[in-house]
Structures are given as C-alpha cells and as structure tokens.
C-alpha cells in the first residue's frame, strides 16, 4: 500500500555509498531510489554482500551516504553532525539486530531503558514505566530483573524489540532479526513484528529468509549494491497464482 498521500518516513534519491579500503574503492551501494512511507512494512532481501546492512545503516543515520539525497521525515540529512544524528536516532529510530546486542551486565529492564536514558528531561520513573510497558507489549514483563544470559535467544530478541519500541520511534529497522534464532523462535519474533505493523508501526527489515520477507507489504531486492526489483504483497500474490514467483527468484539470484 504505497500511496503518495501517506507521508514518507524515508526518502532516498540517487543514494550511493563508497568505502575506501586502502588504495581501493568499493562501491557498496549505487543509485538507490527508495521511499518508505508511514505504516509500511518493507523488507530488503538479497544475497550476502549486496549492501543490505549498509542500506539499513544509511536509513538509520548510523552512516552517511557518499552521494545522493536522503530525507528523514521530510528533513534533509546532509550536513547533520554526529550529535544531531544521535538525537534523531534516539527520538525516531528503533533498531533490532541479528545478534540481539543486549548489554550483558545490565538487566532486561535496564537494557530497555537504555535509549530512554539518553533523552533529556525524562524522569527515572517515566523511563521505568515506558520500559515496563514495552516489555509487556512483547510478552516479557515477567523477566525484567533477569540478565540477558538467563534468557533464550527468542526472548532476548523480544527484549531487543522492546528496547527498540520503548522510545516510540517513527520507524523500526530490523537487521536479520531472525538470523540467530531457530525456526520456532524466528516465527515468534516475526509474529511480533507483524502485530506491531498491524498496529501502525513503520518497519524496515533486512532478511535472507523468503518466508519472512513475504510478511512485508513490499520487498526490495538488492544485487551488487543496486535495487533490481521491487514487489508489493499484491504483486507477489498475483505472481504466485501465475507461478512466476519461482522464476523471479531464480532470475534475481542466479
């Protein structure tokens, strides 16, 4: 459901990213044109090394594009300093990582409170309330005093999702959220993300798994740093009915 009437959270025009590795330049992303609108669930798929995570880093203003125009919530990101980018991430972006990235010497509740602790003017009680609420949303309210190593992988990822949600972000960026999980836990996390999307969250997810990418409204396929294909859920449904989906997969990723 991509409507021009719905405001874009992310707008990328001709974005490219080049890494200097010694004397060599590696063009990781080239000429990316992409919009993600409020309430959308977009998945990014592609083989290893195609630039998925780099694209997600650019969306999350963790990195700066080498060229092109990038607007977040209508505001240009060019020339934004580290501090301003950090503030933007804290207010508007939630991250979920493949390896959960919970801090081992913090309890579950402390991990969820962590991004809120970087906000000015938020009281300790408010932080605790919001963290508890986020944990309740992901079904982890009963494990607040536990440490990450006392949780299963699926539970850790649910805590990570709670941490991403605690700050009420404009967009949730998930990098292979099921990559370190078994099938059952992976499905649990995906169900959680679907539920969040259904409640109006904007989500962008990088995934290898075709089954999980199909949960998204729209799937963007990358190859060698370029977008080679973009399909909507309806398109995919039609193609599935016509038996074209198999062909698309083999053509896209030979």
């Amino acid at each position, binding site marked *: 459901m991509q409507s021009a009437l719905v405001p874009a959270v992310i707008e990328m025009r001709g974005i490219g990213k080049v890494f200097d590795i010694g004397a060599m330049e590696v063009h990781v992303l080239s000429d990316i044109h992409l919009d993600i609108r409020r309430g959308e669930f977009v998945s990014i798929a592609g083989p290893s090394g195609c630039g998925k*995570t*780099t694209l997600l*880093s650019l969306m*999350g203003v*963790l*990195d700066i594009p080498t060229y092109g125009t990038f607007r977040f919530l209508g505001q240009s990101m060019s020339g934004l300093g*580290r*501090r301003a980018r*950090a*503030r*933007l*991430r*804290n*207010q508007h*972006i939630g*991250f979920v*990582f*493949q*390896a959960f*990235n919970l*801090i081992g010497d913090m309890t579950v509740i402390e991990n969820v409170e*962590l*991004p809120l602790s*970087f*906000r000015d003017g938020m009281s300790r009680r408010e932080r605790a309330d919001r963290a508890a609420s986020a944990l309740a949303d992901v079904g982890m309210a009963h494990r607040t005093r536990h440490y990450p190593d006392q949780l299963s992988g699926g539970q850790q990822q649910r805590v990570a999702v709670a*941490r991403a949600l605690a*700050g009420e972000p404009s967009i949730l960026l998930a*990098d292979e959220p099921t990559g370190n999980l078994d099938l059952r836990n992976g499905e649990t996390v995906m169900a959680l993300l679907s539920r969040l999307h259904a409640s109006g969250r904007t989500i962008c997810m990088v995934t290898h798994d075709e089954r999980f990418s199909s949960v998204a409204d729209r799937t963007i396929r990358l190859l060698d740093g370029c977008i080679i294909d973009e399909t909507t859920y309806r398109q995919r449904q039609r193609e599935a009915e016509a038996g074209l989906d198999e062909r698309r997969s083999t053509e896209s990723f030979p």
Partner: protein
Amino acid sequence: MRSPVDGLPRAWRALWRPRCFLPLASLTLGIGLAAFTSALTMVESLLRTPPFVHHARIVMYGEEDRDPASRAASPMFYDAIGLPPGATSHGAAQVPESVNLRFGERVRLARAQRVDAGFLPTLGVPSVLPEDPSIAFERGIMLSHALWRDGFGADPHVVGRPVGVNGTAMIVRGVLPSDYRLLADIDLLIPLSAANMSRDSAANLIAVARLAPGVSGDSVTRQIRATLLASNLPQRPGCLCVPMYGTTPLDVVLTSNARPVVLIFFGCSLLVLAIAGMNLSNLMLTRALQRTQETCLTIAFGGLGWRPRLLPILDVVAISIGALVIGLPIARTLVIAVRPVVPESWLLSALPIDLHWRACAAAALASVTVAAMSTMLGSLRARPDQLLRMQFASGKTSLVGLAQRARRLLVLVQTTIATLLLVFGVATSSHMWRVMRISLGFEQTGASFVEINPDANQFPQIDDVRRATDIIRVEAMSEPGVDSAGLSTWLPVSRGFFMPFRLPNGKVSYLQYGLISPGAMESMGINLIAGRPIGAGDLATTPPVAVVNQAYLDRVDSRGIGGWVTPASPHGENRPMRIVGVVADTRLAGAEQAVLPAVFLPFSQVDTDVYAFVRRFAPTFVIVRGSGQEAVAAQDLQKLVRRAAPGLATGHRQSFRQLARQATAQTRRNAALAAVFAGMALALACIGLYAVQSLEVTSGLRDIALRDALGATPMDQLGRLLSRGLGMAMPGIALGLVAAIILERNLAHPAVETGSIDVGVVAAVALLVMVAALTAVALPSLRAAVVRPASILRNEGTHS
C-alpha cells in the same frame, strides 16, 4: 617434527603484533629499571665499598662527635692512648685545610690534610707510583690522583719533584689511588708532626686504628676507657666524660649519614619497579588472552609441546633487552643528575658516582626476572581441555572476565602505590617550599667571595696579615661597582669555627667565632640591630671590642651593648672584649638549623697566638658587595688579591646566592629525589591505566556502537567512558591516601625531612592523581567515543 628454530620467524613476527606492544612493554619496564638501577648505584657507591683493604677491620676512635656516628680525638687523648689495645697500627689526620701550593710557576689554593706516618698504612692505602724511601716523612707530600692528573699531567716521574706548601719546600713522595677518599675531597696529604699538633684538648683529629683479626671494636672501647680512667688526662671544658670515648667501625662512620636516605629512596625505586612489573603483567595478560584462540587451535590440531611456550619466552627476552636499552641510559642520566647534590660527607670514593658493572648486571637480572614473573602472572592458568571447551562452546573464553578482574586488581595496586609515593613526593616538596621561604638572615644578591690562606710563612706575624687584609680591602673598594669589601674567617652558611668563652655564670662554652675586618658585616649583608660594626678605628692599640649576634643575647648574656665577652682559650691572654654591636642572626648549617650564638672580633685586635691557632683551622674569605651586579667578576677578584698580596692563591669565586643555596641543598635534594620517584610511579600508573582503558574500550566497542545506534551522543559516550576509567583509579587513590595517612610517621623520616601530611597535601595529591588518571583514560575514551557504529555493528556476527 619441526624444531623450535623453525618457529622463530613466526615468533619474531608475533612479537611485533600489535606493533605498540614491544615498545610499550619495554618502556614501562625500562622506567622501572631506570629507577631501580639508579638507586642501586647509589647503594653500591654510598653504602658498600670504602676503598680500603679489609675496611671492616678499621675503626675510628676518640670521643663522640656532633654527628653521633662519628668520632674525633684530641691530640692529648691520641698521645695518651698510643696504639689502642688490640690494634696492629694506628694513625691520625687533621681536618682538611687550605694551603698555598706552588709547583713550578703555578700557585693554587689546595685542600690539604695533615696526616701522621701511621695514617695511610693503617688505612692500607698504597701509592700509585713507587715511593722514594729516601724522602723523609716530614718533608714528603702525597698528591691526590686528580691533582697529579690535572696539575702535573700524570707525570710518571713526579716522585721527588719539589713543591712549595705554604712557602715551605716539600717533595712529592707518592700519588694516592684514584678512588682514595676519607670524609672529604683533598688535593694532597701533608705531614702531621708533633709541632703541628695543637696543645689543647680540642677534639680536632681523625684517629683510625686497624684491629687485629678477631678483635672486636667493643673490647677496644672497654680498654680505651680503662686507660682513660687510669690516666690524669685533663678534661676538656664543657665535655669530657669517659663513656663518650670509644671506637666506631669506619664503615659505619662513612655510611651512617647516607644510609637512611639512600635506603628510603632504594625502597621507593623498588616500588616503582613493582608498578612497572604490574604494568607488564597487565600487558602480558592481554597478550595471553589474544593468543587463547591460537592456543586452542594448536591444542585442537595436536600441536602440544614447545610451540605454545616459545612465544612467551621470546617475549621475555625481547622485553628484557628493550627495557635494558631504554632503562640504562635513563638510569645513567638520573645518576649524573643526582651526583652534584650528593653531600660530600656521603662519598666513599673520590671517583665520580657512575653506573657500575655490578649495578648493570643486577639491572639485567632484574629485567629478566620481572619480565619472566610478569609473563607468568599474566599467563592464563587453565588446562588445555578447559580452554578448548570454553572456546568452542561460546566463541570466547570465560577467562575474559577473569582477566578483566585481574587487570582491575593490578590497576588498584599500582594506583595505590603511585598515590603513596606521590604523597611522599608532595609532602617533601611542600616542606622544601616552606624551608626555601625561611629567611637566612643575610642579603644574598650582589655579593661574592673567594677563599685565601694567609699562611704563616708568607705572613709570619699578625701585623703582616693585618696589613695584607687592609690592602686587599682598599684595593677591592677601588674596583668599579664595589660598594663594600672586607675579610672574614666566618661565612653566614657554613659549619663555623668554635672557640671557648667564659660565660657570665663562670662556665666555659664553645661559641661560634669569627675574625672580621672593617666592612665585612656590610659585605655579607648582615643587618646591624644595635650599636656599631667593627670599624677602621678598632686597632691593636684601642680597647678590645666584639660584635655578637642576637642569639648570643638570647641564650648567653642578655646585657648586649656594653657587656663583656671573655675568651677562655688556652692560647693568648684572653682579654675581655666590650660588646659594641649586635647583628641579626644568620642560619649556619641549614635553613632549618637552630641559630647559634656567635662572637665576632676585629682582625686588628686578635692575639698573635690565638691567630696562629685560628688560621690553621678556619679559612679566610675576601668578600665584596657591589650594587647592580653580582659583585666583581671572578678574574678581577683573583687579580685584586694577587695585586695586593703576591703569592697568595685564591680559591674559586662563589656568589652569596650559591652560598645560600647550600643552606637548602639537602632539602632540595630530598624533594627532587622524592619528586623523581613519585613522577616515575605516577607515569607508570598512568601508562597502566591507559593500557587497561584501551583494552576495556576495545573489548567494549560493540557496546559503544550499540549505544551510539540507540542515540547516545559523543558526549554521553565520553562521559560514561571517562567515569568508568576514573572509577578504576579512584579506589587506588583513596587506598593510597589512607595508607599515606596511616604510614605518616614512617614516611616522615628525619633524614628525608618529609613535611607533615596535612589536608593540603592530601588534596593536592588527590587532585594531581585524578588529573593524571583522567588524562591517561581520556585518549582511548576519545578515540572510542567517535567510532563508526555502522562498521562495528556490520561485523556484529564476528564481534559476538
């Protein structure tokens, strides 16, 4: 099977990964080694090896001196005892005096010591050149090695050459060894004959005896006291009681002053070395962790044996060599820097203090030992199968946590020690500042002096000396820029010369004694409190007068102007002198020493016999004071004396500023040494903190990147990292301060003159260590605070 040699190239490459490891490890151990080696050199040079054969059997005998470890003998006592019972030989020497030495056309003021015929044989000191037995002892002199080398061009035929000593023809009898020294530097030994000996009971001789094997000093002491009780030796005024007589081993006499200070600083150097060792352990611990994966793989592939041990052994060898290369030059620089501030009385040898092969060998041994112990401490004590299970179970070993705790413990200990040493350094320095502010009682700027020796051959009568002093004073006053000039046998900062006086209560006491010419007090910049100074009108024919200091009024006789001072010398007539002036007190032996009562007499009124005695033991100084300049240039002053009194040699010109510095020399030396060791300890602790913070930050990069992703600003990150780094240092700082307060009494050794550890010192140290710790942890924290989170999180799979 491959031999260990095959693994060497790879081990060599591993040594340089990371590149900073070897330089950092070598530097940290090198600093510790420099402190240890320089302190060991001091111990070796100042406490261990007097240059005399079987020195343990040599004793000094006589009555206890002002310095309790030393002894002095009066000529009467020396004659009465003769060869001490149980001794194989004995000898005596007077305190060194200045003489006019003429050889060829050259005349110089030389330091000479009168010794009797038994002195050198008792010490067991041979001549470097064969002595000529035909030269009578009374006519022969022994040159010091330095004078033979510098004054005679190390002429191998110098024995038999004629020289003039105070106008008397003498012959060079031999040359002393290059390391010969007994309590003071001298240029030559001249004969001490009965005629040279004073007739009174003043203890002005150094008497030494060589004991027969198996004879103890205590038994000799008992026999000396028994001899004294049986004799009718007249008692010296104010002091002679038999229990004060006895023997003291020469080794004790020579090392007693230096021992406490040198041992305290040697202890400090060991602490610095310990901190360096802990730093090294920390580095080795990290290295062992970095090699865990490799060790696991080696074990997994069945590569047990020499291979895992080769790399640490190579580390130990390379770090030891690196530390020696860095540490020994620093140690030598330290020794050279400390050399000028070592008091003369501490030196056992005439050779300059320098790194000895024994100290270097000890340094090499210490280097290898500390490196090996640090490697052992830093290596992870885990069984190979445990390592393997841990590595493959979770991708990392639980030893990481263990290593982190060990690192923090080492930081705690080294910060504690560094803080403790810093308290010592700051307390000593603050004491120095207090001492430097004490007024010495004389004006230091614009005045300078040279020593002269109006000897009895050139100036046989007191009138000759009076004429010479008058001419020198008038000549000096005619020099441009000179405001006042005078001669004195007394200087504001010096040990002083003491003579007996009869006190108003009838008792006799030794007081400081100075002969001065008109203009001398003004030249020395000593304030006149009341009355008048010694003037040109005070002549041999006018009533005798004296000037005293304030301490005389306070402690001897408060009558002041108009009062009378009565000498009690066995020489001369002891005519009472009327007090005509009172001058301000000046401190003699040091800024902190108590001011002693002093009596000043005019040259013109001194009795001939008294002067004959005084000039043998008290040097004479020409003092000039000029406005707008540091008095007269050295050459001008020497020319001036030569013009006034040809044949009179002059010593080196010194300014009163230099003289004043002597008053605080000991305090400044102690403060400098304490500051150097404290600085080294602090530097090493900072290196340790830096290394640990770097490791903590590097191992926590994923957390840092994550926080960045979650919206932490660089300032948030920096604040967190700095507070964690300071958190490591704070317990050590607190412990060090508490330990310093508890150990205050032990730290405040009188020999080192540590000031009190007050609130100011504690606050200053706390601030200093915190600033240093903050600086040490700031650099790695700053680097980490600006990492690119994207690049770290991209590799999260490998980081996890």
